């Protein structure tokens, strides 16, 4: 390229590419208001008659609210566990170091790469008599997401000066208070990033609950989508309405938090 493309041409190009992202969303949106025949055509035109009843039918399913509740509960619990355990561990891994903790750090880094052995995990839950409980699935997600959180936090705690620790300890502050009152507030931006990544991972995951949750009253919203499509794939209008209901909260959260998501990834990824 001899000269740079003009900003105008670049802008047009970028908008055209953005349409590629938006059109699929638009497709499910318009079709979610169409009747059974029209929605099966998957077209991009506006509905000939607007079938708001699709949404009414979706909300009539009481397992949807339950699905949301389960997804919300699991995400919240995993966020707390991952942030708490990972920040405590990252704090001593970075500050104390030594053979043992370096080994632990390496084990977490390996956990970042290697895949979960899902069938033995089911077996383990069975042996521990916690199969299908909220506790088991929270522990599963915590274990899976800890490596990433530890990795990010160790990198970040490096940037918190040790002099702060010294000053605090000289003032008579214990190590727990040091962690709670000084370290935690200073790493709060990364904790936000960790939380967002955890929420997105848990909320959107199908793999874990598909294998680990047998009891349908504990199904997450994504599992409900799977079940719903299997049952209702003859009426795409309702299926699309359900999808809109499922992705809207995620998109709203994303709209509000996207600055943090993008800044957090920025800070974490390239630093790490």
């Amino acid at each position, binding site marked *: 390229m001899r000269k740079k493309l003009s900003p105008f041409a670049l802008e047009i190009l970028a908008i055209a590419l953005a349409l590629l992202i938006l059109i699929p969303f638009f497709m*499910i949106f318009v079709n979610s208001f169409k009747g059974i025949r029209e929605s099966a055509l998957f077209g991009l035109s506006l509905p000939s008659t607007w079938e708001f009843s699709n949404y009414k039918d979706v909300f009539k399913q009481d397992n949807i609210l339950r699905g949301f509740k389960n997804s919300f509960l699991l995400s919240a619990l995993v966020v707390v566990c991952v942030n*708490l355990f990972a920040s405590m*561990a990252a704090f001593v891994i970075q*500050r*104390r170091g030594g053979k043992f903790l370096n080994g632990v750090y390496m084990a977490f880094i390996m956990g970042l790469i290697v895949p979960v052995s899902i069938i033995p995990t089911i077996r383990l839950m069975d042996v521990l008599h916690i199969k299908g409980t909220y506790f088991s699935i929270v522990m599963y997600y915590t274990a899976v997401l800890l490596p990433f959180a530890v990795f990010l936090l160790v990198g970040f705690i490096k940037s918190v000066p040790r002099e702060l620790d010294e000053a605090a300890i000289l003032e008579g502050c214990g190590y727990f208070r040091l962690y709670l009152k000084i370290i935690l507030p200073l790493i709060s931006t990364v904790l936000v990033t960790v939380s967002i990544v955890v929420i997105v991972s848990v909320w959107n995951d199908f793999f874990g609950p598909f294998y680990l949750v047998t009891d349908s009253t504990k199904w997450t919203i994504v599992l409900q989508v799977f079940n719903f499509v299997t049952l209702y794939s003859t009426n795409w209008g309702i299926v699309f309405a359900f999808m809109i209901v*499922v992705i809207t909260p995620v998109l709203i959260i994303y709209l509000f938090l996207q600055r943090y998501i993008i800044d957090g990834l920025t800070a974490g990824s390239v630093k790490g």
Partner: protein
Amino acid sequence: MEKSKYPLYFSFPAIIVFLVFFITPTVIGFYYSFTDWNINASSIKFNGLDNYKELFNEPRLKQAFTNTLIFAAAVTVLQNVAGLGLALILNEKLKLRNLLRMIFFMPYVIAPLVIGYIFRAIYHPEHGIVNKFFDTIGLDFMMQDWLNDPKFALFTIIITDIWRVAGFSMVVYLAGLQFIPKDLIESASIDGAHYWTRFKHVVFPLLAPAFTVNILLAMIGSMKVFEIVMVLTEGGPGYTTEVFYTYIRNTFSSGEMGYATAINMLLFALVTLVGVPVLMAMKKREVEM
């Protein structure tokens, strides 16, 4: 301050959870992969290398192995090309820059399962908007049965996944671009370097950390692909889009747990063999920096 005074027990909750719920299943998985564990049998017997022997004679494993590697290689390359391209465009002073960045990242926050269902409709042979589009612009010969034609199915899944993850790479590259000092680029352009030269000699080397992160994440993520394949093709037609996790799922459903665990162990070996060297390279460079 003495390092040893930092309380070791702070690390215990994380270690315990990770040890019990991650490392233990991996270790017992290793054992179970040498057994005939079957959901219908009353007991689990050790049967040595039988599962692995059977697997290596199974053309389906070869398919899953090849497809996973093709998928991972293609996604890693294309995701990075697309992500870097988007990042370079959106690093310019465009009016809609922030809005566009937000749009490109959007698919990443949607459940892959839902994305799979959306694209099943989009690739529908008669009504899907892909074929409708080709029909409208007069390229009828481009109309294909994207998901049911063995020639195209894997390719279609790859494109769908790129659609989903390109924005993630974009954000990481944008981050990398922000770390490049503006005056470096300016002085290069004053020296008369054209865009491409500047890119090759200034931008590209300084983007190295973003490249490593993106390539590592794309590689390990794509080898673990599951939902998109499951929803779009279930590994078919035939076994032409079978990947490790769809193979595991099907074996799991038929109750052959020992066998399914052996497949999982092979995936474990594959990801470790590919991922660890990349990670080591990354760590080494980190020390240098």
